[in-house]
């Protein structure tokens, strides 16, 4: 395992991206350690009498020159809600960096990133850090309606962005696995990365497995500690029950019992 920290960061930005997603940027006084796409932080939710444990969020962006980390926080329940109410200037305590990242793509890889819900964050980070030309990176993001999608204009130089919505209000209508790229061109990729709701990832994994493609997914199992001591976040794998927080959150689908 690598060195980990418990540290107070200052909130420098908290911007609603749409009705349920917020971009929260936090800044450290210290130099940040290296962080990889797929890794996450465990955030203390203060000011709420109902929340006892921390809440894990993927690292969405890192600016090493400004010592900032950005999180993409989707309101799901009480903790995420409370977190989206933090004010600029106040402090937020995080444990970081946690977990293992995605396998870094090779320079000549053709990769497909498939995200839904809060799974968007690690994938966009991966797109940006992949080191590939935009042509080699396709991203399919799925959501209910166009309003549930966030603006990804900043990413068009890193990847080709594609969308699906259940109501057809943006991109192709349907689920991500019904997108034309996914249905018709899956085999043209040699690495698939997916993050999102369980059902979505399982559907992706099924097709990727059938096509014998390299495919990694990032799991969001419930966590208590986030650094491997409680054994609450386990996922059954071919190597037994593994902790998602330390052996994941990224797993190769061949290791999962899906």
């Amino acid at each position, binding site marked *: 395992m690598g060195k980990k920290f418990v540290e107070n960061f200052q909130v420098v930005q908290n911007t609603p991206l749409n009705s349920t997603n917020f971009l929260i940027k936090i800044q450290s006084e210290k130099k940040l350690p290296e962080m990889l796409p797929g890794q996450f932080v465990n955030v203390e939710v203060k000011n709420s009498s109902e*929340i*006892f*444990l921390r809440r894990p969020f993927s690292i969405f962006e890192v600016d090493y020159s400004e010592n900032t980390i950005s999180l993409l926080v989707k309101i799901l329940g009480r903790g995420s809600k409370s977190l989206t109410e933090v004010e600029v200037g106040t402090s937020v305590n995080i444990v970081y960096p946690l977990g293992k990242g995605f396998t870094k793509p090779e320079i000549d890889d053709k990769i497909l990133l498939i995200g839904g819900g809060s799974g968007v964050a690690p994938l966009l980070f991966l797109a940006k850090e992949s080191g590939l030309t935009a042509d080699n990176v396709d991203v399919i993001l799925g959501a209910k309606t166009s309003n549930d999608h966030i603006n990804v204009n900043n990413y068009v130089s890193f990847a080709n962005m594609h969308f699906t919505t259940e109501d057809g209000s943006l991109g192709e209508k349907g689920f991500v696995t019904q997108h034309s790229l996914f249905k018709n061109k899956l085999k043209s990729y040699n690495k698939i990365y997916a993050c999102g709701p369980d059902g979505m990832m399982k559907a992706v994994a099924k097709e990727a497995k059938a096509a014998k493609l390299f495919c990694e997914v990032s799991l969001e199992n419930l966590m208590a500690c986030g650094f491997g001591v409680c*054994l609450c976040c386990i996922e059954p794998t071919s190597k037994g029950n593994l902790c998602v927080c330390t052996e994941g959150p990224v797993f190769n689908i061949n290791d999962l019992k899906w």
Partner: protein
Amino acid sequence: MVDLRVKIGDLEFKNPVMTASGTSGFAEELTDFYDVSKLGGILLKGTTLKNRDGNAYPRMAETASGMLNAVGLQNKGVDYFIKNIYPRIENYETHLIANVNGSTVEEYIELTEKIDVLKKIAAVELNISCPNVKEGGMAFGISCPSAAAVTREVRKVCTKPLIVKLSPNVTDVTEIAKAVEAQGADSVSLVNTFLGMAIDAEKRKPLLSTITGGLSGPAIKPIALRMVWQVYNAVKIPVIGMGGIMNATDAIEFMLAGASAVQVGTAIFKDPFIPLNIIDGIEAYLNRHKLNSVSEIIGALVI
């Protein structure tokens, strides 16, 4: 300089703050954050004779000021521990204490025998209070005859200090404490988790795969504190207190109630530095109260 040393039987601890079993892995994970030699001791994750996969996911549910867990003693078994983990951790400069678990008395004995020969294991904590296993575990810890029996047999093969970890899920915890004291336990530690349950009202399903699980965290502190105080007044062997300790004040309360040392569990999930902060906080308290030694506060509650 205040003296933070405490003794459990013949074993001296550099300070009274340990991490609780199941909440600090096999100690290695904590080294990602700090030098564990600052800790009084580390209770290793509950170990069994054979590999255990533990219970199915989900194993955790957050509750008001606490959490339920249903890990179910997941571990790779004692042989794996001895071969693969022990060599990596044996040189940590703190007391490593094994937490031994079995479904039968025979299993407890065999396991203890294997642990007892490990030089750098400072003591054995006999867990007869795990609420998350189908066989053994808490069943041993909630009746006097069975608690006595397993303690007696393990005592025979255990040359190290033997700490028996008690279950709070009983009518009278002092009866169990006295029973294991009579069989030669060097110390009792309490409390393990309370059997609890959580439900997802919308889905109408339990939140844990096992339906019930063990409650820990600040929610249980008042009950744990009462039990430590009762047991302290009922037995002569030293008591190790735990249950919801989050800061130095909590730890001091347990010591005032009679604990010779404390264990910090769930708090570690919130912040792995809490055990260290507690050590500093105890030192500050002793200075503020002009006391020379932490032993002066053990059982020092004024009634």
